[in-house]
């Protein structure tokens, strides 16, 4: 395929808000997407889960937008909307028919500039209940639901901001106050800590006037405070660390995680391609060996998390059959991962080909374009990186993958989390 050529333009308002514009009028819809540079890594001790709770509060109205009006207006326009909170950032986004771009800008700017006047205790209590139910539904009431919390604690030391899970603890959620909401808003929800991307069908001659009109008068905030805790850590764990959990789970599952270079490091591309060799597609090493040939696992999953704070993580998991033991799963995973020191060029080519298809498919959605442009601007000050993503991965050599497997995927950098079905007495 030829070089991707997603068009883009960058601007910055006086208050520090960064803007990325990407025009495409094929379909009369437009995506508005804001990334704020705040996530669970910014939470102070005793406040875990707050960044996510705060995200919920952002939908509870602002000075000029009554409760529920945000959803009502976007849905009325025929739009979709949502938000997500993760370790390093929180994003808010809507896709609307292009004639309602101004509506989306009004809503997003109102909560960026005038959220606090609409906050009250009743809304906080209501959303705290909603979030607790989210926690129950997605984590507590699910087999293996606490895996991320356990794995993070194995890979990151206690003071590191990735030690605790994004969803936080019930005790900390219970302790959250309206004063916390105000302080968090004043510190992090400032234009100089955000990127606004508009992608899709808009009028290029007018769009910056609209952005200026709605966001221009929001005052800049103070510089963002340094991360709490101690984010320094060694590039590898230094040992094999493990936890064995007997739980109400149907099948044994072994989750294996590794500390890897952060997303901001050039070496992260090597980790990404390595993970694709291991687990992307059905010709990948883990699927072929564990699922198709040895039949010890019913399924395998792999991720390389794009995290910024000094170290990211690569994880793999294998879920067994009723008669697979955790030991079998662990041995098979270990063997296949270590064998990556013999990676071949044909595997790299396959991984790049699949990644290319997946990226183009993602970019068919203006919402996904906007989301990636916001991310690249916020993380790397370089939204055009989107057009060079494939080149960045294609530049990874098979020797780099072999070296990476040897230095990062061995027994001195391994976190093993085992879930075993509780034995019935």
């Amino acid at each position, binding site marked *: 395929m030829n070089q991707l050529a997603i068009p883009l333009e960058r601007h910055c308002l006086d208050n520090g808000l960064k803007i990325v514009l990407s025009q495409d009028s094929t379909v009369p819809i437009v995506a508005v997407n804001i990334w704020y540079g705040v996530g669970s890594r910014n939470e102070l001790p005793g406040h875990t889960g707050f960044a996510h709770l705060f995200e919920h509060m952002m939908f509870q109205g602002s000075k000029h937008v009554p409760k529920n009006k945000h959803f009502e207006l976007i849905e009325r326009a025929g739009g*979709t909307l949502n938000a997500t909170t993760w370790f390093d950032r929180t994003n808010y986004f809507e896709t609307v028919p292009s004639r309602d771009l101004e509506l989306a800008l009004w809503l997003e700017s109102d909560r960026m500039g005038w959220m606090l006047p609409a906050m009250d205790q009743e809304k906080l209590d209501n959303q705290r209940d909603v979030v607790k139910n989210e926690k129950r539904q997605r984590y507590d009431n699910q087999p293996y639901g606490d895996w991320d919390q356990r794995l993070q604690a194995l890979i990151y030391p206690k003071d590191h901001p990735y030690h605790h899970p994004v969803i936080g603890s019930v005790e900390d959620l219970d302790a959250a106050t309206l004063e916390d909401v105000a302080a968090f808003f004043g510190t992090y929800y400032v234009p100089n800590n955000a990127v606004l991307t508009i992608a899709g069908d808009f009028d290029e001659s007018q769009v910056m006037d609209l952005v200026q009109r709605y966001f221009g008068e929001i005052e800049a905030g103070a510089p963002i405070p340094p991360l709490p805790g101690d984010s320094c850590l060694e590039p590898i764990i230094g040992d094999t660390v493990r936890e064995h959990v007997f739980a109400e789970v149907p*099948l044994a599952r072994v989750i294996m995680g590794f500390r890897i270079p952060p997303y901001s490091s050039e070496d992260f591309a090597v980790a990404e391609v390595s993970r694709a060799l291991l687990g992307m597609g059905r010709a990948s090493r883990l699927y072929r060996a564990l699922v198709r040939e040895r039949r010890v696992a019913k399924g395998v999953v792999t991720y390389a998390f794009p995290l910024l704070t000094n170290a990211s993580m690569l994880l793999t998991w294998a879920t067994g*059959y009723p008669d697979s033991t955790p030991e079998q799963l662990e041995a098979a995973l270990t063997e296949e991962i270590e064998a990556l020191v013999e990676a071949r060029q044909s595997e790299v080519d396959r991984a790049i080909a699949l990644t290319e*298809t997946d990226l183009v498919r993602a970019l068919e959605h203006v919402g996904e374009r906007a989301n990636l442009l916001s991310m690249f601007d916020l993380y790397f000050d370089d939204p055009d990186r989107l057009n060079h993503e494939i080149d960045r991965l294609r530049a990874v050599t098979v020797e780099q993958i072999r070296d990476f497997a040897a230095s990062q995927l061995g027994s001195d950098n391994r976190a093993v989390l085992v879930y075993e079905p509780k034995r019935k007495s």
Partner: protein
Amino acid sequence: MSLLDRTQPPASGEIRQFDFPEVQTGALSNGLDLKICVLPRLPIVSVNLFLRAGEGSLVEGRAGTAVLTGDALEGGTLKRNGSSLAEALEGIGARLGVSTGWEGTSISVSVLADRLPEAFALLAEVTLEPDFPSVEVDRVREQQLAEIRQRSMDPSALASDEVSRRFYAEGLPYARPQVGTESSISSVTRDQIRGYAEACYRPGSGGLIIVGDVDPEQIKSLSSEYFGSWIGAPSAVDNFRVDAQTRERRVWILDRPGSVQSEVRLGHVGVARTTPNYLPLSIGNLLLGGTFTSRLNLNLRERNGFTYGVRSRFSFRSQPGPFQVSTAVGNEVTASAVREILSELESLVVDGVTREEVDAARDYAAGVFGLHLETAGQIASRLNQILVYGLPDDYYHLYRDNIRSVSTEEVTSAVKAHIRPDEVQVVIVGDAESISGSVDALGLGPLEVV
């Protein structure tokens, strides 16, 4: 002091006319429908081959055969084994997917436009020359059985299966899980799978849909080249009429001791996709529980904080699929949540709907329709709906106008006709000890802990 008057939402701009993209329709001489849609925005293509080989046409003892056959396609062809097939596909960046439902099996490929001819050849090879080696058939069977075990501890999956069992009369396909049951799957043999593919992977009443950056003439010649000499029609057809298990309101608690939350499902047998009430009923469902600002979500989530979310849904199938409200709520509010859901259903059918609600839901449906015409895959799946349910070719071209012309009265009469609070089955998966007393005290009907 704000410079701009922020007190009112800005008005919408001019509506930009936008039509469902043009589709070339035709058929091969073997009866396979052909739908081609050129979408040159990005160099990507979605190909979807729909075959009328669905779970709905299988007797109970064979349930799961269609799903397993679809799953086993990746096991290899007469020309190459499973691993080589995966390498051939992924080497050109092609994503192969097989999904099997009640009505049929869809075999689909996404690929960059410049690799389409190779992808086409592989799609034909997978479909027309599958090998089903025993070792791969055994594997997909074991995987499916393990999946069933996994579902048996997942509260939401348990609730879905319990809904099927309690809504539908015993023995009907819809009364069982779509993937089949442990006993039916265990007994499916390799020969049955080969026989099933031989009999049902046939072009008659199926279709081939290609959407993306393509040249229609090239597509026509590729289609004839690879699928032109394929013949026949599927031997099995759907042949059942749906009946409810009971018209009496009942409560079923599937005990899952230690649950910190209850998965709640509440509903009854709904209507078929072919109902003339499809659009008014869809609008009625949107305002009941199909959007964030629906009656149910504003009540249970935003007013009461009982849940992370609640939805209602009609599953429109070739025969009446379930209508159900679904949510997950804390143990201590389970009874209250059930009462609120039921009272929303009652007030919907007693008082009907308001003009404002219908306007909002219609605007949402008409607007959001355009958001789902972005990708080759989205358009292909719309065209697939036309094939599966025999909708007119201009269905999606007229969709927005038809949605906008739905009246308040039509919505009210549709929800009154198809939502019956007195007949709902209340299905709860949760900790029976902590919830059954308060749920029983609601006095909804006979309660059984299972």
